[in-house]
């Protein structure tokens, strides 16, 4: 088979897959989300199990820090070794930095999220945004917002999972201060960025 043929074939295949996905979407519209209080109890029990079994809570931003630390260490080993931030996630080098609770937990989140999405016909290629902005602007703002999250999460030593949810349930003083500031920050800015969403 020539290269060109292969490309044509794969394009044709993409189209079939897309057409199938479209007809699938028509036949199986996304189910509505579950009752918030029941979901909350489910989430709370998962968190409680983490406390009971492991003696620690949930998290997310730490896994991103591990990925970045490993990448920087690969590209500039000396540089990474001289920075306390990277050091923290790289460890002493005796075990792989990826062998961490948070990294494995996040791999589970991908599987669990996908599973729930598939069961409710909610896995589909789409972009969440308001009607007044283009996809491209939405992506730019997504990167900017994500970057602020990455910065804020390190300053606060945790994000909505590790601080607000986990620390909230343990009545951790810093976590509650953090949680109130997250809501304060978001509500203060919401009016000014409303074009993105409504």
């Amino acid at each position, binding site marked *: 088979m020539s290269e060109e043929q292969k490309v044509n074939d794969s394009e044709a295949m993409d189209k079939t897959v897309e057409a199938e996905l479209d007809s699938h979407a028509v036949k199986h519209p996304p189910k509505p989300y579950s009752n918030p209080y029941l979901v909350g109890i489910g*989430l709370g029990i998962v968190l409680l199990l983490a406390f009971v079994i492991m003696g620690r809570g949930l998290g997310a931003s730490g896994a991103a820090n591990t990925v970045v630390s490993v990448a920087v260490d690969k590209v500039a080993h000396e540089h990474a070794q001289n920075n306390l931030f990277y050091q923290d996630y790289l460890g002493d080098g005796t075990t792989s930095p990826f062998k961490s609770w948070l990294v494995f*937990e996040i*791999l589970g989140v991908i599987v669990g999220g996908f599973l729930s999405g598939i069961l409710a016909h909610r896995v589909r290629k789409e972009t969440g945004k308001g009607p007044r902005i283009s996809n491209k602007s939405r992506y730019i703002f997504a990167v900017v917002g994500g970057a602020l999250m990455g910065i804020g999460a*390190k300053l606060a030593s945790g994000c909505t999972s590790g601080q607000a949810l986990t620390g909230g349930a343990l009545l951790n003083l810093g976590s509650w201060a953090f949680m109130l500031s997250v809501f304060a920050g978001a509500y203060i800015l919401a009016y000014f960025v409303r074009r993105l969403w409504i």
Partner: protein
Amino acid sequence: MMLPFFKFGMFGDEISLVIAFIIGIGFGFFLERGGFGSSKKLVAQFYLTDMTVFKVMFTAIITAMLGVFFLSSIGLMDISLITIIPTRLVPQIVGGLVLGFGFVIGGYCPGTSVVGCATGKIDAIFFVIGVLFGAFIIAELFPYIQGFYNMTSMGKVCMPQYFNIPYGIVVFAVVVLAVAGFAGATFVEKKFANKSGEGK
């Protein structure tokens, strides 16, 4: 006392990674169930049109909090063995504000963006790229901001000891506040959802 299992040496590090993966599946599953995989749904709470995210989050907090309180009250769990993040008040308040800005601009938080990616949301993929980039920026700046980062370091401190109020009273107060919050959330939801025609 026999809980938490891991701290009493019931299993080792390798098994703990398997448990992390399984706990993660439960975490991701319920996040998606609640609509946390969709940026529009997450952000709707800041426009008061759909308070689902607020309700899910505080129901989860009080569920886990009551469980921990119960297990420690009957002497089954030693809560001093549960890992908690040390309080550094000022950087955590500043970090919280920055994170709040990022939330309403980017539409996700780190955990929910992973669920967004898993369910095909393109904006979530860009958000994750942003998070990695932000982590890189703060890592490179870290040597210069360490003074600020370690400011107002108070160690591991929880509200009952800090305010010198019995554990049970704080738990009760949080439950009362959350229930009041749910009522308030439902009220504003009705008010604002009608106005914008959203919030289903």
